[in-house]
């Protein structure tokens, strides 16, 4: 039996009007998230991974000239068709978000307890006292010691890791069905990162949430998600289980990602294989594959025709002419005694 998805994004397109032309930030993206599932989205800046998530809640900068099309079905309702007032009921209450930098997301002049209580009073109609008590419980839940006292502190009194825990407390205050975490640990120290990721996983389990984990770091995705979407140039270029993407990547970009950053498990003399050039925004009409200009496998066809979606295994799909020809990019070098 197929489970009804909690979130079902269909053919999402997000375009920004810029002085240089129409920027195709997200160009025909479809994916779904099942209840209680974690889906990872990996990509570099400009890949469209963050814009995809911002468009789910229509959180665009106020002056952005943006056009959005497609469907964002959440519990069967198309969020793109909701009024601003209706959408406010969803934001924070049914869908929570955690961003990279807690300092810019928190109000610096308001005690953290009040920032948590605010959401509870707005969405849940709790009294001042009840909201305060719940805020303290939430601070305790995310691992802030002495929450009764710390609830009165301003954000600057907390370390970066603690501030991110507070952001998480705000995001889960109304027990959302879906939590979107956009690079939640990228601004944190490495020893704090593991603690915050473990916290997110525990809360997801205890509250029965779905989680979308967005990161440029394949390590973060591998540690948290079972299913991965790889984004490049506004497209999902490959999707599949973590195992499939790491071990048997079909798309040259995914294959390159695994050899791009130094890995403690790899021999030190194993050279990094960079991707030439840099990610360029897709402005105006761009025929062929978005990755073709940087791809070592690119053929003439790749520059002319949109690549097809090719199923490589169950739920493993690669958007690539190479895959259509049944060719896999060279696998990542296997570290000595490393991966299974």
């Amino acid at each position, binding site marked *: 039996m197929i489970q009804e998805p909690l979130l079902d994004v269909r053919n999402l397109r997000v375009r920004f009007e810029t002085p240089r032309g129409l920027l195709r930030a997200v160009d025909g993206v479809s994916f779904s998230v099942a209840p209680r599932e974690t889906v990872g989205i990996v990509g*570099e*800046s400009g890949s469209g991974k963050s814009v995809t998530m911002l468009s789910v809640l229509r959180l665009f900068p106020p002056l952005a000239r943006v056009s959005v099309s497609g469907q964002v079905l959440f519990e069967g309702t198309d969020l793109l068709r909701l009024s601003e007032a209706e959408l406010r009921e969803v934001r924070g209450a049914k869908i929570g978000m955690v961003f990279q930098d807690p300092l810019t997301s928190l109000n610096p002049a308001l005690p953290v307890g009040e920032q948590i209580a605010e959401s509870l009073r707005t969405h849940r109609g709790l009294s001042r006292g009840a909201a305060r008590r719940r805020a303290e419980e939430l601070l305790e839940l995310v*691992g*802030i*010691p002495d929450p009764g006292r710390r609830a009165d502190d301003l954000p600057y009194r907390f*370390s*970066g*890791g*603690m501030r991110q825990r507070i952001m998480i407390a705000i995001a889960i205050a109304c027990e959302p069905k879906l939590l979107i975490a956009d690079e939640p640990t990228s601004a944190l*120290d*490495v*020893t*704090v*990162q*593991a*603690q915050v*990721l*473990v916290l997110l*996983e525990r809360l997801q389990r205890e509250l029965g949430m779905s989680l979308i984990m967005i990161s*440029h*770091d*394949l*390590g*973060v*995705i*591998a*540690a*948290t998600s079972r299913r991965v979407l790889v984004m490049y140039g506004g497209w999902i270029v490959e999707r599949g289980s*973590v*195992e499939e993407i*790491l*071990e048997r990547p079909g798309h040259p970009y995914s294959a*390159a*990602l*695994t050899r*791009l*950053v*130094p*890995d*403690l*498990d790899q021999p*030190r003399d194993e*050279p*990094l*294989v*960079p*991707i*030439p050039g*840099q*990610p360029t925004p897709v402005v105006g009409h761009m025929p062929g594959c978005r990755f073709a200009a*940087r791809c070592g496998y690119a053929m003439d066809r790749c520059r002319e025709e949109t690549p097809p979606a090719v199923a490589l295994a169950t739920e493993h799909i690669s958007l690539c002419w190479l895959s259509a020809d049944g060719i896999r990019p060279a696998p990542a070098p296997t570290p000595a005694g*490393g*991966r*299974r």
Partner: protein
Amino acid sequence: MTAVPAAEATAAPLMEARGVTVRFPVRGGVIVPVDGVSLQIAPGETLGLVGESGCGKSTLGRALLQLVRPAAGRVAFMGQDLTALDGEPLRAMRRHMQIVFQDPRGSLDPRMAVRRIVEEPLRVHRLAGPPEAARAAREMLALVGLDAIYDRQRPSQLSGGQLQRVALARALVTRPKLVVCDEPVSALDVSVQAQVLNLLIDLRARFGVAYLFISHNLAVARYISDRVAVMYLGQIVEEGPTDTLFARPRHPYTQGLVASVLRPGLEARDRLGAAARLVTGDVPSLLQPPTGCRYHPRCPFAQERCRTEAPRPEPVGGGQVVACHFWREIETGTARLRSAAAGAPSG
């Protein structure tokens, strides 16, 4: 004079720092971001300096170059004590030691054409007349992979990766003996990081330059460094040859750091849980550094002694040095876990 260990006697160090201490007055007191640090860098060697935010690694890099003057300690470089130099003599040494910052957009003059940016150190140090400087700048730009078409462009027209190439060309144009690279790839997209790292390695081979490679990213530091020093709250807690240090980290902090690096492998999920158990709490404030061993509030092996007595750096063989009272016990698995007397971890 004290005896020099055999391994280090072979080559005189290019730079040798002893007891370098930096103090900054801040509201509410004085912070000591670098507290009695000693290190050596051999000619042509890359020393990785790793640690988390606020550990003092960037300040140490600046203090070595006298961009921040140390409050105590000495920095010998090419046979001179930099801390005793000032004015013109210090300025004259700068052509031999350069720095590359994390954010090239913030460190390169946005109004200056790229070629002028690279020429500038030659003119400042009066190392070349205008035609030679222009030629040297073009050669350097070609070496970092920027074609002649970029000569006249300004920083705003270049990408982050291209700008970091310009910063490297500028740093190397005077043929320095040492370049401090302060998080040189941290602001770049992952696909561009590898290009710049490989370029740093090529340039090192070509010019025989030594790097102090400062990074919060352990895997990046491991990839490029011959030796690695680990810093925590203003002090070096462990250092050693790269392969040894990563294969057998002895200090509990280094062990925690290494375990915390998430790797894109299939065991990533299991490792995540193990890492979260190994290191708890946040980095404490430099305003109130913990007594004794500064790592004791977060250390799973902390004992009463760790709270009261600061451990001294101790050679453990193979060029590895560790500052921990209990490294032997930890190594043999006989270390006791944190006692209640040492206090609970806090954030």
